[in-house]
């Protein structure tokens, strides 16, 4: 079983965590297995081979080869097939956009289509179902909440700045903990920063639910939403409305990757200027950042990561799950954005350039120092993982690395860390 023995995980993770090149991963992949010997839709590897060849052809500007491969992929792919077919389908879309320089248009179209079919009910159903079948998001929530509660313990006025698209699913358990932990329940102010239209549209409903739930829990509560921003890089200290007597926690879930690369350092400095007691960061373990000028390398890393993700979805959801389809579509938009859109075409944009935990750590160390997670939190995480299907594990890095990693079939997939000034 994957999650029983932490020591095994640690040893296995030493290598992947040190090496940041994607080639080692992709060669493993094409060699016939992701380490567990399970076929799982990567049996004949045709998708990976064709996709990579096509990426190379585009990079080489080999026109006839490009056409040939695009045609082949189009014939073989399907967003409703097995993992290979799905990956082929969505990556084909990105390759096509790259070849025709239509990435931004495609992304805008995909986004507006998604927005139209989006509602509070569908979003709620999606995110809750995902959290039910997979710890991908709950892992980060649990660890971050643990760190936040410990850092803010004893403070009477709390201000949590939530920069995420989690639709506040992280906060009910924190509210409950605040209500039951101590006799003196603090006042909590929650400021949520959203930039995606798809999230913006449901925040009204979310805020009602949160306020109601907080009342139920008996926690004095104030809820603010900052929706006027169209890119996170433009977030300012003033907009956040932090008061002198508040104990601040900044919570970033999948947020830093949306900031354009050159705006990342300034944003981290801005967080520092808020004087927070703790900053929690949760990101997915992939590097689309250092390879952003090398199309093929970036492509391969992208393929590696999303292959893991799609396989995970396939195993966690039922075959006919609508939620799985929605999540896959969300990925397809991200893939198009990373591979076929130019970053920072204007100064007011976002991206999806993920970085690995170690890379984020380097950035965060410029303004903060790492805080370890307590044994209690680690225990809670292990208990959480036990409640899901097998395959999940917890890796605690050693040496100079910080944070905790969620692993899926021995691969690190999600990283969570806590920082203090």
């Amino acid at each position, binding site marked *: 079983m994957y999650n029983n023995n932490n020591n095994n995980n640690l040893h296995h993770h030493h290598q992947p965590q040190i090496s940041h090149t994607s080639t080692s991963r992709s060669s493993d992949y094409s060699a016939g297995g992701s380490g567990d010997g399970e076929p799982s839709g990567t049996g004949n590897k045709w998708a990976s081979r064709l996709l990579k060849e096509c990426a190379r052809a585009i990079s080489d500007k080999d026109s006839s080869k490009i056409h040939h491969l695009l045609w082949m992929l189009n014939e073989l792919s399907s967003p409703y097939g097995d993992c290979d077919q799905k990956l082929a389908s969505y990556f084909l879309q990105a390759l*096509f956009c790259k070849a025709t320089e239509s990435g931004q248009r495609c992304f805008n179209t995909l986004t507006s289509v998604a927005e139209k079919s989006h509602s509070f009910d569908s979003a709620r159903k999606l995110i809750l179902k995902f959290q039910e079948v997979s710890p991908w998001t709950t892992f980060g929530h649990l660890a971050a909440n643990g760190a936040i509660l410990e850092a803010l313990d004893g403070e009477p006025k709390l201000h949590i700045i939530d920069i995420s698209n989690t639709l506040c699913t992280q906060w009910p358990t924190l509210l409950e903990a605040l209500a039951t932990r101590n006799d003196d329940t603090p006042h909590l102010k929650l400021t949520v920063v959203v930039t995606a239209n798809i999230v913006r549209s449901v925040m009204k409903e979310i805020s009602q639910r949160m306020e109601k739930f907080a*009342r139920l829990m008996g926690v004095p509560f104030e809820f603010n939403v900052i929706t006027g921003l169209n890119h996170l890089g433009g977030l300012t200290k003033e907009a956040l409305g932090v008061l002198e007597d508040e104990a601040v926690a900044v919570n970033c879930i999948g947020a830093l990757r949306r900031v354009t690369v050159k705006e990342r350092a300034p944003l981290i400095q801005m967080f520092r200027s808020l004087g927070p007691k703790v900053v929690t960061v949760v990101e997915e373990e992939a590097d689309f950042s250092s390879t952003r000028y090398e199309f093929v390398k970036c492509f391969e890393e992208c393929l590696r990561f999303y292959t893991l993700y799609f396989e995970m979805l396939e195993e966690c959801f039922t075959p006919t799950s609508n939620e799985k389809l929605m999540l896959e579509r969300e990925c397809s938009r991200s893939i198009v954005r990373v591979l076929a859109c130019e970053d920072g075409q204007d100064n007011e944009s976002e991206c999806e350039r993920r970085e690995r935990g170690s890379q984020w750590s380097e950035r965060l160390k410029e303004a903060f120092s790492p805080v370890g997670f307590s044994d209690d939190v680690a225990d809670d995480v292990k208990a959480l993982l036990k409640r899901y299907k097998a395959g999940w594990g917890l890796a605690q890095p050693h040496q100079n690395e910080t944070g905790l990693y969620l692993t899926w079939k021995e691969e690190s997939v999600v990283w969570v860390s806590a920082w203090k000034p």
Partner: protein
Amino acid sequence: MLETMAEESISNGFMMNPVSGSNPPGVAKKKRNLPGTPDPEAEVIALSPKTLMETNRFLCEICGKGFQRDQNLQLHRRGHNLPWKLKQRSTKEVRKRVYVCPEKTCVHHHPSRALGDLTGIKKHFYRKHGEKKWKCEKCEKRYAVQSDWKAHSKTCGTREYKCDCGTLFSRRDSFITHRAFCDALAEETARVNAASGMHSLAAAGNFNYQLMGNPLDFSTVFKPNISSSNDDAIDQTRRGFSLWMGQASQGQEIQQFGSLNPGSIYSDPLVSTTSNPPALDYQLNWVFGNMVSSGNADDHQVTTSVSLPVSNVKENRPQLVSVPSLFSTQHQSHQTPSFSMSATALLQKAAQIGATSTETSFLGSFGTKCSNSQDGNKYSDLYVSNIPTTTTANDISTLNRLQMYPTKRRRMQNEDGGGGGGETRDFLGVGIQAICQPSSINGWL
């Protein structure tokens, strides 16, 4: 008043095996006396950590044998055949003893917060400041006090949490998260008004699979809509209404399939999107009832089909306020006001039809609700909004009135099924759900 109603209903709704020491979520913590507020006349004892941790504190003066409890020591002393006097405890009145925690940083270190019994202070010391040596095998939870660990192990994994909507959970955290977003929570204040009439929503979940199995079949259902002009589409959607009657949560499903239309996007992203969206929008327009699509021609369609949104209040109400944010900025300015005017105009018109006598019974509790939501919406100035403040109590009652039309009512009940609510959704439950939304708009504006 509202909060006590909420508390009562919630505590009735929660069913879980009580475990000592844990607070069931949803019951607002009652402020009883803080633990460790002792009798001011009591004698304060400060034991050292070593002494607290000693297991055999009670020593026999004869043979030096140690016992964990005083009773055990006394029993033992009888065995020594001591003279009668020494057998008894000294008769002098013993002052009540309270104990402080030796840990300086602890809140119970100060005599004013001392704990009343020795066992209590011992357990406290271990729990808060001790090493957690006892671990539950099932869930990894650790305990410093053995009796806590034992008590936990007995119930670990056996607890079940039941939400008001009927869903069962074995995990506390997913139960809590679900609860915060559950429609049953939104409706708790309407509990007193709920009438009979259960509506099972178990079937709703199955729709997903059926639809997923035949995506192509679904697109054929919409084929008639796709190729028609604006006017035809309107008629189509009206006819389509009856098609929808018996099919509950398809509403949601179709939305997703609508977005499948650009499936041919790979061949030419530009071409396929321009040909499909109008049809797509008509479908979605109808489903949501108030969706505004990107074409100008659709303005007319919005006006005529706006009767539908009123019936679909549960989904639409949040849509109503969020319409501005669903679209790119260029569309926002000219589209939203016209739409919202139509909807509001309709409401006002409808208000003229019905009386407001229903107001008192439904809105008695909502009076407070409205005012509550007002102060909660501090971000209203940050929020993009073009909706005028015209929703009134009149509208609320007439909204309810409009739901009395049988066809719309049935549809609404089915719609709710798709929304992922609970078993006990009934007409009035739905009606009240509808009422909940407008009042929140009130507060929001």
